[in-house]
């Protein structure tokens, strides 16, 4: 989907969180109506990725390309920061550059940490799902396995080894009676989420049967169940808020 550079997708790199519903309706110039100047949209994309990650009930796909681009951006700005001029204006430029860098680093950290938090929470269900595992970064993959191993060992040592024989499993409530791994915290995909629509989606089915449909137009803000909009979110038609 990263490669999909079609018309609709193009628009999405604008600041969606600030895009007003319909410019012509507004009695004032929208704050975010920026001119045609070049903007680093990577940071805005990262902000949206962070908000998505924080709001979505499940662990989302790792935005590897985006993270790499932002890391490069930060590195580049750090070199510029190092050779700032020793003049009053140079000092001012240094301050602005440093502040922008601090903000970029914060976003990157917040994004990665939110993912780690969810990875720990849903560790077992992620490790059990090859498709999900594929969407982790190599570091996250390693972390998930280490975490599972260490936590399992800790729980076993502290509690489980003192339990009756059939209740010693980390993954099952009862070693023999449970047919599947039934004590892993799984994300609740039916949780309600707040969504902002980035591009007209037309009528969207909100359940598998397709009985209920909702029309989603650009700029709409709505509350709906995560399951219904999961694919639209992945393809960046929507943004969680």
């Amino acid at each position, binding site marked *: 989907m990263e490669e999909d550079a079609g018309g609709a997708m193009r628009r999405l790199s604008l600041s969606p969180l600030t895009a007003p519903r319909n410019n012509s309706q507004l*009695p004032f110039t929208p704050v975010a109506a920026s001119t045609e100047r070049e903007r680093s949209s990577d940071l805005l994309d990262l*902000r949206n990725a962070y908000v998505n990650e924080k709001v979505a009930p499940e662990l989302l796909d790792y935005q590897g390309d985006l993270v790499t681009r932002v890391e490069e951006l930060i590195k580049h700005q750090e070199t510029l920061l190092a050779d700032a001029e020793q003049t009053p204006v140079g000092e001012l430029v240094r301050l602005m550059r440093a502040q922008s860098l601090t*903000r970029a680093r914060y976003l990157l950290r917040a994004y990665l940490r939110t993912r780690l938090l969810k990875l720990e929470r849903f560790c077992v269900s992620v490790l059990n799902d090859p498709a999900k595992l594929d969407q982790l970064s190599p570091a996250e993959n390693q972390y998930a396995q280490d975490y599972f191993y260490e936590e399992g060992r800790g729980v076993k040592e502290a509690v489980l080894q003192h339990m009756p024989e059939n209740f010693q499993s980390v993954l099952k409530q009862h070693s023999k009676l449970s047919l599947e791994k039934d004590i892993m915290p799984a994300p609740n995909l039916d949780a309600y989420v707040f969504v902002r629509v980035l591009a007209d989606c037309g009528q969207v089915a909100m359940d598998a049967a397709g009985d209920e449909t909702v029309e989603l137009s650009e700029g*709409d803000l709505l509350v709906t169940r995560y399951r219904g909009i999961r694919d639209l979110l992945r393809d960046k038609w929507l943004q969680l808020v």
Partner: protein
Amino acid sequence: MVHLQETDLLFTPAELEFFAEDEEVEIVPNFQLQDLVNDDMLNIAAGTYGPFRPSSITQVPLWMALMLHKRRKCRINPPAWMAAAQLEAVLEGERNRPEKFQALPFHYQEVAHLLFTHAKDSFGGDLVQVQDLVAEVARVRRNKIQAGLRELQSALSAVKLLDLGYMEVNQIRPFFKASLDRFFRLLPLDPERQEAAEAEPTPGQRPPPRQLRRGT
């Protein structure tokens, strides 16, 4: 063992302010970048801004405007929607049309709070009036939102919230989401769904919606 808390996945007002600081505002710098190569433009992580020349209007992110303003390097032009006349019209509209919200920027409360806190002099003699108007608009809207929440009686598959601000969304989020989640779980469920619903841990006590009034 670290466990994901409900509160870990909520945005704090401070975080919403961080987002709002990316909004652009108009400033009038009183310095020159003296960068002949780049034509007085500034290239930083957030993008390219400028040109920075005395008395020439330029658009910058709010955080940069506030930083320059603090060092007395620029004057901030408050956004158009913050003009007293404009706000009076919005307030009028909010009062006369109970069924709909007036269009305001998504980050209107955050932007207003930041400007009122750090750049009071941008408003000149209008400061008190503008502050009152913004507070009154927010109050009328909050009452409307609370009245609207009373209508919430079942597990709707989607609820549209037209023209709410981010701060307002964030305020109603815990209650709104918890109610809908609960309604949904009480629906007659097919066996597959029932299983999914049972696997989900019961949400703990949630905090009441936050009040947004802070000292200004």
